[in-house]
């Protein structure tokens, strides 16, 4: 217990977040251009290209169906990148974590600060994507803004998952596993591109176990209709995944950084 308290996070985590924000100033334009273009292309290619042959899905035009899913997908990608490639560089290459731990910061401060930052990047990506959706007239309700806190929690959650991979990764190449086995399956099977209803039972079960699925349901409901079905349940699932990933990430990063 005392060891846990030694590494517990505090308000100083915000200082770690500030450091990442100051760094972000030096390269944010490249990121905005890259990720945003990518997801706007998905919207155009699938929503309007493929959408011409898919007249209606889930009771709405195809572009409107996938748009909200892309908002939470962009959030997943942004935070996963930051928590894998970004955090690996901070942990192993630039010795950023080491520098922080030589100040009166704990492993918990460093981890929570990092995850807050990853969640912030999710938020930035999601806001940009929402603006694109609004420009295409795909936002149905003012309550679409309620998706932003959902995105923040979702980003924090995926950052925890990414940081777990980072803490055990022997090299950058390891992240191929994280992306092809964890991130990509969620991107395709969490209900962004097609409804999960009607899939074989086992696939539905797998999809329900994917954290992104809950974010997609909340996002689609909020952006299209201004409210989501079973919102409390999905919110609870997101929070549970978040806490679990956070605890494991703290433990593994501590093991990596301290002898």
């Amino acid at each position, binding site marked *: 217990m005392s060891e846990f308290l030694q590494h517990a996070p505090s308000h100083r985590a915000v200082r770690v977040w500030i450091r990442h924000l100051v760094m972000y100033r030096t390269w944010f334009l490249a990121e905005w251009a890259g990720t945003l273009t990518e997801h706007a292309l998905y919207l155009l290619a699938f929503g309007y290209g493929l959408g011409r042959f898919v007249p209606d899905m889930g009771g709405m035009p195809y572009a409107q169906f996938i748009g909200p899913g892309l908002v939470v997908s962009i959030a997943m990608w942004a935070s996963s990148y930051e928590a894998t490639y970004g955090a690996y560089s901070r942990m192993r290459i630039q010795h*950023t974590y080491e520098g922080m731990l*030589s100040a*009166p*910061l704990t492993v918990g401060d460093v981890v929570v600060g990092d995850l807050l930052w990853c969640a912030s990047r999710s938020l930035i990506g999601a806001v940009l994507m929402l603006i694109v959706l609004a420009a295409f007239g795909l936002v149905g309700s003012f309550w679409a803004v309620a998706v932003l806190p959902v995105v923040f929690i979702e980003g924090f959650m995926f950052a925890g998952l990414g940081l777990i991979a980072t803490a055990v990764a022997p090299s950058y190449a390891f992240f191929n596993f994280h992306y092809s086995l964890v991130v990509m399956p969620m991107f395709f099977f969490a209900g962004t591109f097609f409804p999960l209803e009607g899939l074989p039972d086992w696939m539905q079960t797998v999809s329900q176990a994917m954290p992104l699925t809950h974010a997609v349901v909340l996002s689609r409901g909020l952006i299209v209709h201004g409210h989501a079905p079973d919102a409390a349940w999905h919110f609870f699932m997101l929070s549970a995944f978040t806490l679990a990933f956070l605890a494991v990430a703290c433990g593994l990063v501590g093991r990596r950084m301290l*002898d």
Partner: protein
Amino acid sequence: MSELEFEVDGRGLAKSFGALKAVDGVDLRIRRGECYGILGPNGAGKTTTIKMLCGAAVPDAGTLRVIGIDAVAEGRRAREQMGIVPQESTLDSELTVYENLWVYAGYFGFSRRESRPRIEELLQFFQLREKWDSQIKTLSGGMKRRLLIARALIHRPRLLILDEPTTGLDPQARHLVWNRLRELRRQGLSILLTTHYMEEAAQLCDRIGVMDGGKFLVEGPPLALVRERVGEEVFEFRGVEAEPVLRVLDGLPFEPERMGDTLYLYCKSGAAVMDRLLDSGRRNFLRRPATLEDLFLRLTGRELRE
């Protein structure tokens, strides 16, 4: 002397990695205002000892107090009182000198406004004032090292810990670092450093401890240790047979040591040895004062450590 007068008070510290005993029952006491140097070959346990102080390694055994604070149980509080200078740069290379410092000051709870006068003062002291807006990647190795030390002092710690502070620096840069460290010591800061530069230890340290195999072999003021363990003077012979030299000097007090093609004679006073050598017609030797390097090599052996 009461316990609190020790800035660092470590007793019976031990740390193993698997079967390797990196630190094997070490006592480490540093007095207020003292500069203490840990010397030792690679793998002697210097860095692990430092890591325990900084909270980056948890000792398997022993107690460790820094400024009276239990550094193992209350690492965060202990680090509030220490400035830590790592061996490798942990600066943010994309950020400027000023950004690096105010961001780091934030880790101690200082706002940007609060830290600014202190940053001015430190950059002045380390001759980096004109680098205020320069990105780290444009700085030389010596500047980065000075900046790392400046950063470690941002919160006015009572104890400064440096892991090999001048490794990889050119002589000018090294002398500037030594000069600044001596000034800090004069201002009353307690300093703990590791090094394998003997000159560094001789120039800076009030006391040294020579470490090998996870233990301290000897401890004390550098000059006194050299006198006591090596002697005052050393004669070096290169590429000669040992036997004839030793026969000429038969009966005089000295200690010989053979290493590769070189014969070393350590003695309290060289005058008698010198006379005897000159009488025998020998000129091909070097007479010099004994140094810390002799002490170090005598204690830790002359074989290569890798």
